[in-house]
């Protein structure tokens, strides 16, 4: 407390945070300002703001006319949202079981589920592809959703079970005395209390899924199932790259994830500040 109220320290902390924010935002800023400049201006003065002379929205018109960008967006959105919902639901349920019930192999099961945090799922790409071929799921969004759910679960289970251990036993027991079922205790008492943790998990899960190029390329490269990250690659050629279009596509791709982030971060803050959750 004493350290926090010290003005010099507060200033230093803010300076560090501001510098970090600037560094983090710099590439995004470059993408956005260059996406509305002419090709000459992009290469001539990449750091300059667009002026009436260099203004050229050709990138956006190319993107919106070329290919099925709306479709790609939709694919990305479906994959991200469905995977996210599954990760949150199953992750929270597994975390509740691990933190609430004493059963044989509880600790072992927890370790097994957390193992996925340390082993990158891409190591299993060949096996996953073989499995998807065998299951006839290649070139479907289902394939991506399954892989991303598996990818997101370990961290979700790990973080959420830590938080659920901190939910008061007395509260859960009061629910049991009042006749709430275990499902009601989970959905009505525990989940609202771990909402900030859910929001954190949501943000950490969502961003790698939205940005992923690897699995869409391998599991679902068909025209109907392309995600926006994969779809944008058409503008990057081996010999010529349409930089206007690439930058415009990237700028557009930032938007939905930004919206989702804003939704979750508001949840996060609301969960922390309000004692009342409903």
């Amino acid at each position, binding site marked *: 407390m004493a350290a926090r109220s010290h003005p010099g320290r507060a200033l230093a902390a803010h300076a560090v945070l501001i510098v970090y924010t600037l560094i983090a935002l710099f590439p995004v800023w470059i993408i956005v300002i260059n996406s509305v400049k002419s090709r000459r201006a992009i290469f001539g003065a990449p750091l300059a703001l667009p002026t009436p002379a260099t203004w050229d929205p050709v990138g956006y018109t190319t993107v919106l006319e070329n290919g099925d960008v709306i479709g790609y967006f939709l694919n990305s959105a479906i994959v991200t949202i469905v995977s996210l919902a599954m990760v949150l639901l199953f992750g929270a349920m597994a975390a509740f079981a691990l933190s609430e019930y004493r059963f044989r192999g509880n600790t072992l099961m927890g370790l097994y589920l957390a193992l996925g945090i340390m082993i990158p799922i891409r190591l299993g790409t060949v096996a996953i592809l073989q499995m998807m071929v065998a299951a006839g799921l290649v070139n479907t969004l289902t394939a991506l959703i399954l892989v991303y759910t598996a990818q997101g679960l370990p961290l979700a289970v790990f973080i959420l079970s830590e938080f659920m251990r901190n939910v*008061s036993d*007395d*509260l859960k*027991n*009061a*629910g*049991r*005395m*009042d*006749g*709430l079922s275990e499902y009601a205790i989970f959905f*009505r*008492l525990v989940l*609202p*209390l771990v909402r900030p943790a859910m929001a954190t998990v949501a943000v950490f899960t969502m961003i790698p899924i939205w940005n992923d190029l690897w699995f869409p390329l391998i599991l679902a490269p068909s025209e109907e199932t392309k995600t926006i990250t994969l779809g944008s690659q058409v503008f990057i050629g081996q010999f010529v790259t349409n930089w206007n279009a690439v930058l415009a596509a990237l700028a557009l791709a930032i938007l939905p994830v930004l919206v989702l982030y804003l939704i979750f971060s508001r949840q996060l803050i609301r969960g922390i500040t*309000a*004692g*009342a*959750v*409903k």
Partner: protein
Amino acid sequence: MGSLRLAGLTKSFGRTEIIKGIDLSVANGEFVVFVGPSGCGKSTLLRMIAGLEDVTTGSVTLDGQDITNVAPAKRGIAMVFQTYALYPHLTVRDNMGLALRQAGVSRAETGAAVDQASTLLDLNPYLDRRPAELSGGQRQRVAIGRAIVRTPKLFLFDEPLSNLDAALRVATRIEIARLHRELGATMIYVTHDQVEAMTLADRIVVMRAGVVEQVGPPMQLYNDPSNTFVAGFIGSPRMNFLKGRALGEQSSIMGVRPEHLSITFSGSAISGSVSHVEALGGETLVYVHTEPHGLLTVRLFGEHHFSVGQAVGLTPDPARVFRFDAEGRRLR
């Protein structure tokens, strides 16, 4: 309605046995207090009665019906928790009414039961607030109200006052005693505070490390403790234990309560020097260092003046001396 019987109750967590065989009968309408040091298994025993913790062996019987394997909500038992455990997203009204609504009672009947309980506890102005908008004392009253609304056969309280400040603790203690009189219900109350135990209980159950040391009305435990543990736990300040052999006694331990030790200046059995004095106005506690008994406490009524280092003699009231063997068992 509300007689409880515990038979051969044990509980193990893994290989550690926490509750080591408890037999106890509680009569209808009785107020029984479980008292014992922290970690002796009071809460575990209470949770076993409530059905929140599986019983390893033994049985729990309520009104002649074996409820050992009955779900918590179906036992006719209500519990008040140490941390209040109110539902943060529900209003006071809904907190109190939830159990009845879950049991399928109509909205009108639930409302009537909630109104009755809130009137009894002066909670009417707060019915539409959320727990976060209440003070600690108000939250505790809501938690008690939530138990009352269900009209249970048996009330369980797990250290309900330990999160309240001293003044509120006394007020709530009196409130609970009043509720017991008005409702006439059977209550089991857990505490590690012997003052709460003495003031509330019809009967006290003194526990240590998962076993019952002694059961009896407060004054019986005070006047007739069966071992040094009970003698030391009941009564405040704690009983003094003297080395019997040094006083020419047969028994190896002699127990004298601070109020039964007087300061004398001639013919004293024990001599020592004053090491600290606590003047409380109504009473004065004098701590006297003695050889070979160590630090002894003397409780005098009214104001008395002693200076630190002053030589004094101590004389126990011979009618109020308890004798124990080397294992701490009472010699009668």
